[in-house]
């Protein structure tokens, strides 16, 4: 038994190593003072981060990505919360079908989603612009928000809302005074989820982005086509911090909020 378990433990350690080593190497190399984005390490330096901050194209890509991520997460969380309320709190005909429709965007390969949205909006003579990018990101992140919010909403007792209603609060008042505060951790989780997915997306973005506009992932993609440079590693390190530290602190915040509302 013991040897079996130690084998499992060894396997687990190896899998963790496999998952983390490449990411760790990116961070390590981003501090390499060498001209080339590769081994050997010649010394520690922050110069590549400084060059990043001075690189207009990269700074612009960051601004685009952040704006896109924030707009996407606000819109898709609003749509997602409303739809989840309908799904969890009401009974109506066709519910199962609609529930599948809500998560349909992740059941369809993202390339196909990207192609259909692009071709349809071009057919309507809408040029490739920021709006197309935003619409694409909203449709693609919506299912994730719906799944996260629904899972949480199922666990919130209907009795709280019924109590508020029986005490004379209107449905909208009930939502803002009772349901929303209880749902806040899921709303934040959904927003973060949507933001991170949007911030990271490249599959659809390469189809939707107007010429000349780059998000951080497409900027990295364009730079990779030339060669791997120390700047890419530094950019990678910054991306890792944004996409890892942000959700982690969000999760910690959500847990604190949940604990407070439970008290």
């Amino acid at each position, binding site marked *: 038994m013991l040897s079996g378990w130690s084998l499992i433990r060894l396997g687990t350690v190896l*899998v963790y190593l496999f998952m983390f080593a490449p990411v760790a190497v990116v961070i390590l190399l981003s501090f390499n003072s060498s001209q080339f984005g590769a081994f050997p390490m010649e010394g520690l330096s922050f110069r590549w981060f400084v060059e990043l901050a001075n690189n207009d194209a990269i700074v612009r890509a960051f601004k685009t990505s952040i704006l896109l991520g924030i707009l996407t997460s606000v819109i898709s969380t609003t749509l997602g919360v409303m739809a989840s309320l309908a799904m969890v709190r009401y009974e109506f005909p066709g519910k199962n079908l609609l529930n599948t429709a809500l998560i349909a965007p992740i059941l369809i390969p993202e*390339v196909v989603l990207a192609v259909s949205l692009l071709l349809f909006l071009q057919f309507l003579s809408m040029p490739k612009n920021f709006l197309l990018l935003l619409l694409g990101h909203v449709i693609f992140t919506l299912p994730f928000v719906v799944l996260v919010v629904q899972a949480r909403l199922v666990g919130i007792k209907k009795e709280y809302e019924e109590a508020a209603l029986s005490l004379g609060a209107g449905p909208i008042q009930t939502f803002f005074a009772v349901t929303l505060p209880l749902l806040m951790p899921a709303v934040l989780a959904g927003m973060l989820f949507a933001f991170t997915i949007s911030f990271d997306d490249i599959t659809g973005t390469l189809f939707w982005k107007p010429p000349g506009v780059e998000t951080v992932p497409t900027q990295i993609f364009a730079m990779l086509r030339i060669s*791997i440079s120390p700047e890419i590693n530094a950019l990678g390190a910054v991306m890792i911090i944004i996409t890892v530290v942000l959700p982690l602190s969000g999760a910690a915040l959500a847990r604190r909020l949940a604990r407070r509302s439970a008290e």
Partner: protein
Amino acid sequence: MAAVAAEERDLRPWILLSPALTTITLLLAIPTCFVVVYSFWLRTAAGGEQVGFYLDNWIEVLTDQFYRDILFQTFRIAAITTVLCALMGYLPAYFIAFSKMRNKAFLLLLLMLPFWVSYIIRTMSWINILGVSGAVNYVLTSLGIVSEPIQMLYNETTVVLGLIHFLLPFMVLNIYVSLEGIDPNLVDAARSLGSTPFQAFREVTLPLSLPGLAAGGLLCFVLGGGTYITPLILGGPTDAMFANLIYEAIIIQLNWPLGSALSIVLLVVLGAVVLLYNRFLGLGQIRKGFG
């Protein structure tokens, strides 16, 4: 409150649903139908589109051996990736589910972390590991094991490797969710009835975790089969997957009718996998991962 209003037709759920449903109808349902129509149009020599009902794209896509080969190659790469993810994913999922350690939640979170790290960064990070001036070649040449750096990148193996790195967290999470739901008394019962630990695993734990394995497998297969970024970054010229053909047709050649036909093929093929899964196992299992 739903019960009271149910007597008359309750419009509230429909009001709540309408923004999301409008979005999905306008941005997903109608565009997908439109792509079907588009695939019957023709690209003219001038670069425009000839509206009509032409079967040319479909005849090309369905009869050309080239497309069949790439489709087969896509299936092979996705299948190998899925099987390897299942094998590699089971160990940590099992360890986290049955470990007596106090920091189980932390271990799970740790394994989910790469899931948050940008897909393109994770894909590109393998160039730092396996590239000509990457970590492995650096170690090998400094130790004098090889005199010249070995070319390890840009082949089917590195594409599979990149895909595993991308998809493994989905697999671990799904297996973990189903292992976590197993009543530990069942394994104890099997043991007390005289089975060895391995027998107990084979007869009790493994069958009970199959729904999680299947859900993880579906995600790995469908996400792996629909990607074009990993082959572009880590693959060689002959390692294209089906989605690469779509990217090529739409973005590079601007042959939108052909790209439409190719998109429909990918949608039907991967959609059939999802439908088969839903028919026999149900999509509910995948939702559990979000709980």
